[in-house]
C-alpha cells in the first residue's frame, strides 16, 4: 500500500499534494510516529508484537469442551476451533470446514474439512476428531448439547476430510450449532476412551487454533504463543497474547487508560466507565461481535403471585417504565430497546408486534380496569423485588424500577441478596420480581423458547421458565417452528409466537444489552465475526 501511494505521488502533482496531506494526517493519528510506516500500516498487517487482553474473572479451566463460561471462551477460542464461524448477520463462514452443503430436505449437513491441519502436538486433524466430538465428547460434557443436537441421528465420516451429520427431522437452527463455544472440536487422540473431566492433559489444552498454550500463572496471567504450524498461511500476526487477570473494575478501566492492556470484552468495564474511556484518543468502543450471545435483559415476574398473574397488570408495569431512560442513564446508551422476546440481531426476529410506549396514565387505567383499588397510601399493589446482584448497574436499575412503578401506584420494596442467594430464590420460585438476562445463541430454538415453554417449568433450575408462564399455543408454535424447513411458514410461526408473547408479557423486556469491546486503536482486525473477542484472533495485528 505504501508503494502504491508513493507511485501516485510521482505520477502527478495533484496526488502529490494529497500524499502530503494524507501523511500528515496519518502522522497525527499515530501520535507523531514515523510518517511513511504509519501510512503503510493502514492496511497491511504488521507481523509481531504482544497483545494484552483483560481477563475477568479467572476461568476455572481452559478446555472449551468442558467449560463455556465467557472468560474461558475469551482464552480458549484462540486455542480451539470449530467447523464454522459466523459473520455479523449470523451467516456461516469457513473455519475448519472449508465448504459445506445442506440437503434440500434439511436432513443432511455435509462438511468438507480443511486439509493439512495439525493439532498443537503435531498429530493430524481428521474427520474422526469431528465425529468423536459430536457423538462422544460433547453429549457428555456440554450443557447445551441436548438442544443443539436434539434432532441429530448420527454422524459419519466418509473419508478423512468429509463429515456428514444426519438429522431425523429438519432443524434449521442446527447450522448455528457449529459456533466454537457450542462445538469446539476436541482432539480424539487425547480424549478417546478416557474420563474427559479427569484427563491429565486438561492442564495443557491442545487445539488446532492460531495460538498455543504456554503458561497459566494463577491469579496473574494466561500466556499463549503463536502456532507456527497454523493452517492459515502467514497467520497469526502477533507473536504472543497475555490475558491479564485484573479482579477490580476500577483497575481494569485504568489499565486500558494507561495502555497496559489493549482489549476489554463482555462486562469487563462497567457501563458508567464507557463514556469516559470512549473519549480518550487511544481507545475505541465497538459493540459488534456479540450477535451470537445477543443478551436480552428483562424484569422477571413470578406469575404465581397475585395480581401479577393477570396480563393486564404486567402490561401496566410495562407502560410505567421509560425504557429509553433506562438505556440512556443506567446503561449509558449501550443497548437497543427490545420489541419482544427475540433480540433484533437474532434470527427470526420480527418487529410486527404491539409496541409499548412509556404511558403511565395507561398503566393506571389498566389497573383500574382490573378492579384493583388504591389503599391508604395510594397504592394498587405491593411487590417485592430482588435486585440482580451483578454490580452497580443493576442496583440502579432496581431503584429506577421501584420509582417508576411507585409513580403509578405499585409499591416496590427492594430486598438485597448475594448472587448465590439470588440464584437459589429465583430457581426455587421464591421471588416476586427480579431482573435477569439470558443469551440467545443466534436462534430462537437455541436460546429463546426455553424461557417461555410450559415444558421448561422446572423448579430448582435457573434460566428455565421460572415465571411459571404457560400457554399451549406458544409451546406448539415454538415446537413446530423449530423443525419447520420451509422458510416462510417458519417465519410466520415465529411471528405469531412473538405477537402472543408481546401481548401477554410473560416477562418485561427492558434492553437488548450491548457489551462494549474497548480496544486500543493500534490493535486492528480485532472484531471480524459475530464471535467478537471470543474468536481466534488469527487476523488480528498490532500497529506500532
Amino acid at each position, binding site marked *: 500500500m505504501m508503494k502504491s501511494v508513493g507511485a501516485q505521488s510521482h505520477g502527478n502533482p495533484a496526488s502529490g499534494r494529497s500524499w502530503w496531506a494524507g501523511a500528515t494526517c496519518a502522522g497525527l493519528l499515530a501520535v507523531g510516529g514515523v510518517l511513511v510506516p504509519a501510512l503503510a500500516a493502514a492496511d497491511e498487517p504488521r507481523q509481531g508484537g504482544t497483545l494484552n487482553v483483560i481477563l475477568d474473572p479467572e476461568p476455572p479451566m481452559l478446555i472449551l469442551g468442558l467449560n463455556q463460561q465467557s472468560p474461558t471462551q475469551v482464552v480458549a477460542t484462540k486455542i480451539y476451533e470449530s467447523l464454522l464461524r459466523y459473520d455479523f448477520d449470523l451467516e456461516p463462514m469457513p473455519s475448519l470446514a472449508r465448504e459445506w452443503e445442506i440437503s434440500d430436505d434439511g436432513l443432511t449437513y455435509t462438511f468438507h474439512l480443511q486439509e493439512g491441519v495439525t493439532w498443537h502436538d503435531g498429530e493430524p486433524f481428521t474427520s474422526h476428531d469431528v465425529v468423536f466430538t459430536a457423538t462422544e465428547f460433547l453429549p457428555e460434557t456440554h450443557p447445551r448439547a441436548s438442544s443443539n443436537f436434539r434432532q441429530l441421528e448420527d454422524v459419519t465420516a466418509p473419508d478423512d476430510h468429509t463429515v456428514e451429520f444426519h438429522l431425523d427431522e429438519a432443524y434449521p437452527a442446527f447450522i448455528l450449532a457449529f459456533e466454537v463455544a457450542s462445538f469446539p472440536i476436541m482432539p480424539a487422540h487425547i480424549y478417546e476412551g478416557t474420563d474427559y473431566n479427569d484427563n491429565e492433559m486438561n492442564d495443557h489444552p491442545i487445539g488446532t487454533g492460531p495460538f498455543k498454550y504456554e503458561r497459566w500463572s494463577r491469579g496473574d496471567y494466561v500466556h499463549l504463543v503463536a502456532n507456527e504450524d497454523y493452517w492459515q498461511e502467514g497467520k497469526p500476526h502477533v507473536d504472543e497474547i497475555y490475558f491479564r487477570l485484573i479482579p477490580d473494575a476500577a483497575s481494569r478501566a485504568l489499565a486500558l487508560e494507561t495502555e497496559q492492556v489493549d482489549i476489554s470484552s463482555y462486562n469487563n468495564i*462497567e457501563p*458508567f*466507565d464507557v*463514556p*469516559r474511556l470512549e473519549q480518550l484518543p487511544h481507545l475505541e468502543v465497538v459493540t459488534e461481535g456479540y450477535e451470537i450471545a445477543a443478551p436480552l435483559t428483562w424484569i422477571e415476574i413470578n406469575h404465581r403471585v397475585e395480581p401479577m398473574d393477570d396480563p393486564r397488570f404486567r402490561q401496566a408495569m410495562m407502560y410505567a417504565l421509560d425504557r429509553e431512560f433506562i438505556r440512556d*442513564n*443506567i446503561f449509558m446508551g449501550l443497548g437497543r430497546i427490545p420489541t419482544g422476546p427475540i433480540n433484533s440481531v437474532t434470527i427470526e426476529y420480527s418487529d410486527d408486534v404491539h409496541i409499548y410506549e412509556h404511558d403511565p396514565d395507561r398503566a393506571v387505567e389498566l389497573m383500574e380496569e382490573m378492579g384493583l383499588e388504591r389503599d391508604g397510601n395510594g397504592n394498587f399493589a405491593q411487590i417485592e423485588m430482588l*435486585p440482580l446482584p451483578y454490580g*452497580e448497574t443493576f*442496583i*440502579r436499575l*432496581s*431503584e*429506577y424500577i*421501584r*420509582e417508576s412503578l*411507585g409513580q403509578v401506584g405499585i409499591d416496590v*420494596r*427492594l*430486598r*438485597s*441478596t*448475594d448472587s448465590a*442467594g439470588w440464584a437459589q430464590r429465583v430457581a426455587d420460585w421464591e421471588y416476586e420480581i427480579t431482573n435477569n438476562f439470558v443469551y440467545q445463541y443466534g436462534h430462537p430454538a437455541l436460546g429463546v423458547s426455553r424461557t417461555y415453554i410450559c415444558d421448561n417449568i422446572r423448579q430448582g433450575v435457573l434460566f428455565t421458565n421460572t415465571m411459571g408462564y404457560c400457554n399451549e399455543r406458544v409451546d406448539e408454535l415454538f415446537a413446530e417452528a423449530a423443525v419447520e424447513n420451509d422458510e416462510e411458514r417458519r417465519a410466520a410461526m415465529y411471528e405469531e409466537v412473538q405477537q402472543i408473547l408481546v401481548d401477554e408479557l410473560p416477562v418485561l423486556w427492558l434492553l437488548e444489552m450491548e457489551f462494549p469491546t474497548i480496544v486500543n486503536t493500534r490493535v486492528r482486525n480485532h472484531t471480524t465475526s459475530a464471535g467478537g473477542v471470543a474468536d481466534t484472533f488469527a487476523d488480528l495485528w498490532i500497529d506500532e
Partner: protein
Amino acid sequence: MNRDFWNAFASNRGALVGLAILVVVVLMAIFADVLYPRSPWSMVTAPFQPPLSDDVLLGSDTLGRDIAAGVVHGSRVSLLIGLISSLVALFIGVTLGALAGYFGGWVDDAIMRFTELFQTIPNFVLAVVLVAIFTPSIYSLVAAIAIVSWPPLARLARGEFLSLRSREFVLAAVTTGQSTPRIILREILPNSLSPIIVAASLTVATAILLESALSFLGLGDPNMMSWGYQIGAARTVLRQAWWMSFFPGIAILITVLAINLVGEGLNDALNPKLARKGRGR
C-alpha cells in the same frame, strides 16, 4: 450541679460548636419531610445536574434524584442507626461489664474471655459478615453495629465496677444487707456513669461511620436513603460528577466531628479531674 456541668461544658469552645452542628443535624432529621416532602428516591430532574441548578440546590445524581433531599433524609438513617445501635451496645456492654466487675472470679474470667473473642475479630469485617448473613435491612444493620461496638464499653464498665466494688460506700451497702441488684444499679452504676457516657457518645460517632461504610459497600437497607449509600452510588462517576459524593461526604464528616467534639465537652464536664490532668501533660 447542673450549672457547674454546663459551665464546664461551655468552657470548651469546640464542644459548643459541636453541639450547635448536632442540633442542626437533628432538626434536619426531624423536619426532613417538611423540607423535602417527596421521597429522596424520586427522580425529580434530569440526571447529572451540577449544584446550583434551577431546581436542585446541590445537584442531581445519576438517576436525577435530588442530592440535597438525599442528604436531608439521609440524616435520619445515620442518626437513628447511630443512636439505637449505640444504646443497644451500651446495654450489652454495661450489663456484661458490670457483672464481670462486680462478681469477679470465674464470672469475670468467662465474660472477659467472651469479650476478647469479639475484640480479636476486626470490627468492620465482623459487621460486614453479619449484615451479609442476615440480609441488609435497618434491623440487621442496627444489630450488626451493636454487636461489634459493645466490647470496649464492657471493658470500661468492668474497670469502673472493679475499682468501685471495694470502696467504703459499697461495703457499707453490703453490710446493711442491700440486695445485689440494688447495689449494682443504685450504688455503683450511678457513680461509674460519667466515663461510660463519654465513651458511649464516641460510640455513636463510630456507629454512624460504620453504617456509612456498610451502605457504601451496598450493604445498607436498600429502601432507606443514607449518606453512605449516596457516596457508594456516586463513586462510579466520581470523575465526572464530584458533587454526588462530596455533599453526603461533608455531611458525614461534620456530623461525626460534631459528635466527637460534644463527647470531649462531656468528658471535660463529667470528669473534671481527668480532663485537667490530660491538659497538664
